[in-house]
């Protein structure tokens, strides 16, 4: 029992599968937990507003509701100026959060690649259209072409008819042989078989095309059609929406700001999900793209470890932690296998690099076309000379694209992590000095 730290305060950033599990596990282990998410609801990209919610989602969300875990919705982390402190925007106001241990469960975003017309209204992400559908968008009678890459294409295409949409075609850029290998790889993950079968059954009436990708979205003020290309033909499909994304890229900005080591695009963690930054843990997509099950397993390990690992790295890890974490560690190992299969199964084909024309917009915020990047030597060079990544999203969309197109790693995260009103940053220092903090589990920093 000596490893219980009743006063240990843990902040979990992100309320998706990883963050929910981390928050509940840390709470069960005796910590005082604050869970924050920028969205108005918990659940993350996969569970938010799901109708009907999956059993596991319903259970975790229910437990969160019934637990004393403080959940701050609509709360965006803006800066991490020093260890133990986070600056957030909550209801438009500055809020300082302090923590002994921090769990990053910031998830992933979709990778968007430029092609002519990709900036037209009604060209969305695959997760993007799903989020809007869950957010109440009625797709009755709408034709939605689903394109890009990754298993999300299938599950979203399967769910869209529930919102009334027709899906005339699903275009997966990966080749059939890769997909077959993916399907076979899934056999080793017992939990995934029913899911895969169910998908295949639902997708039967749909038109699934492997080795196919969009080359142009048509329209003037909005999308009207999309031209697809496969090995032997190119054809145009009329549609109301194009849902298109090429896999995921992790949300690393906060981890980078905190100084966590990132290798090959992912946060480096140890067996207990500890990053290289002291007292900072990480779970879910930022450590490797692998889906909700991996995220939950990692989240549980991170939450337990954050609550129970001793302050002193040299003290022995308690038996209590070992025994509580054991099942999650085992599950995590199985999921890591799936993550590896996933990574090998959807390699991006090099032809995708040739899709943007010289005049195609690459940086959407600043309208930087591909041709303006000619002669630039790096992300920073293009930023300073051409305004690449200077806009609202600060390179979150074009960074992944230029990394794929031009091989430029994106550099340099600066606060605020999300745009905030001048008023908020002007008041930030004051908010810190103010002891009358309305949130019981947040204390003003020093």
């Amino acid at each position, binding site marked *: 029992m000596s490893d219980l730290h009743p006063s240990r305060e843990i902040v979990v950033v992100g309320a998706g599968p990883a963050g929910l599990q981390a928050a509940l596990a840390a709470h069960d282990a005796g910590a005082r937990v604050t869970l924050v998410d920028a969205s108005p609801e918990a659940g993350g990209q996969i569970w938010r507003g799901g109708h009907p919610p999956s059993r596991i989602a319903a259970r975790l969300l229910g437990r969160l509701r019934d637990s004393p875990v403080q959940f701050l919705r609509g709360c965006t982390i803006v800066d991490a100026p020093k260890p133990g402190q986070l600056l957030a925007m909550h209801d438009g106001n500055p809020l300082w959060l302090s923590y002994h241990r921090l769990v990053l469960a910031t998830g992933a975003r979709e990778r968007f690649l430029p092609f002519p017309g990709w900036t037209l209204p009604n060209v969305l992400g695959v997760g993007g259209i799903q989020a809007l559908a869950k957010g109440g968008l009625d797709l009755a009678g709408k034709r939605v072409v689903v394109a890009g890459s990754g298993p999300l294409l299938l599950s979203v295409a399967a769910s869209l008819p529930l919102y009334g949409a027709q899906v005339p075609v699903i275009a997966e850029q990966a080749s059939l042989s890769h997909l077959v290998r993916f399907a076979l790889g899934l056999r080793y993950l017992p939990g995934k078989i029913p899911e895969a079968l169910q998908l295949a059954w639902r997708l039967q009436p749909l038109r699934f095309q492997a080795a196919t990708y969009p080359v142009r979205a048509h329209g003037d003020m909005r999308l009207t059609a999309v031209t697809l290309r496969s090995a032997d033909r190119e054809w145009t499909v009329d549609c109301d929406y194009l849902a298109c994304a090429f896999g995921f890229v992790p949300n690393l900005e906060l981890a980078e700001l905190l100084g966590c080591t990132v290798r090959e695009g992912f946060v480096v963690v140890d067996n207990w999900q500890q990053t290289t930054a002291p007292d900072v843990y990480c779970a879910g997509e930022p450590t490797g793209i692998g889906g909700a099950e991996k995220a939950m397993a990692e989240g549980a390990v991170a939450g337990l470890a954050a609550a129970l690992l001793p302050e002193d790295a040299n003290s022995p890890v308690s038996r209590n932690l070992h025994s509580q974490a054991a099942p999650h560690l085992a599950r995590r190992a199985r999921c890591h296998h799936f993550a590896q299969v996933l990574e090998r199964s959807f390699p991006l084909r090099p032809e995708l690099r040739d899709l943007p024309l010289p005049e195609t917009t690459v940086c959407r915020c600043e309208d930087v076309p591909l041709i303006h990047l000619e002669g630039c030597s790096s992300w920073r060079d293009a930023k300073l*000379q051409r305004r690449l990544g200077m806009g*609202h999203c*600060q390179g979150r969309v074009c960074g992944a694209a230029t990394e794929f197109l031009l091989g430029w790693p994106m550099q340099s995260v600066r606060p*605020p992590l999300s*745009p905030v009103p*001048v008023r908020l940053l002007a008041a930030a220092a004051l908010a810190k000095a103010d002891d009358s903090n309305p949130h019981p589990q947040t204390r003003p920093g020093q």
Partner: protein
Amino acid sequence: MKHPDAIVIGAGIVGASCAERLSADGQRVLVLEAEVVGSGATAAGMGHVVVMDDNEAEFALTRYARQLWLECAHQLPAAAEWEPVGTLWVAADDEELDAARGKCAFYRSQGCRADLLSAQDLYRAEPKLRPGLAGGLLVHDDAVTYPPPVAAWLLERARNRGAEVRTGVRVQALEGGTLRLMNGDSLQAGLVVVAAGAASLRLIPGLPLQPRKGHLAITDRAPGFVHHQLVELGYLKSAHGSALESVAFNVQPRATGQLLIGSSRQFGQTGAEIHHALLSRMLQRAIDYLPGLADLSILRTWTGFRAATPDKLPLIGPAPDREQVWLATGHEGLGITTSLATGQILADLVAGRTPGIDPTPYAPARFLSAEDERSSIPEAADVHFH
């Protein structure tokens, strides 16, 4: 390039200007830049091209420099975002308005276009300013620019005359006219120009330079929010004082419609991180003058380092005690403005021509001569504007 006549260390706007001017004199120039063109303070600073009159030497240099800017403005690429918006010095009270009156008379006496604004004129020019201000001084020919593309443009001109620019090459040490690079290579030239900004101190330890950190914030697009580069007259106290920390209202309309918000000054800081206490003060100061600013979004904040000399004047000329080595650094908060003049003066001195203005106030030798002379340099804080 095997045997360059001159090597310029640093491709900030000052190094770029030196390279451009030296190449115009027929020198074969090699530029070495540790990162990319226009890094350093050139990427971080505000890009206000401004005539300042805190002391005679500053006035002479900035006025000469602005003239050079105006001469080439029409040739600048679009990315340089040249906007001839003028500077509006805002007077909060009658005391500041008096100061503005004196400043106005001085500018006019020197042939610089300037107008004193009554409170009424002020609000006509900038309706978003808070009520209750006393007036202001409008200096017409000042401008704002985005400096990194200017550095690139200057280097392009140098390249067209045979110069070579190597980026990603850091000079490790400087021994006489010999440069040692990070990768172990050595390079030599008859003339080495150190234009490495605040990092020049690392190449020549003992230079009278101190990094002076500044914070900046950029907003979302809000076209037409303000029309001039706005600065409080109290800015001069911040810029020229020697306080450890100070902030001043300083807001710049960008060609994109964004607003760039400054300014802060801190001595004794070497890390690039954001200090929230100072940032908050700086932004609050801006809101005090422009209440509507509060609701605009900030996209990014960052910091930069001014290379400050004790008298806040740059170091332009041969380095004392070092053959072949010349300095072009120490421009504090005015190096964008004075970059073009720096390159011209340096090239004139190298060629043995008489520069357009008297170069002695900027000669590095001023700090390296007798101790008693050094201490006799007036602290700029004591100098009031004319």
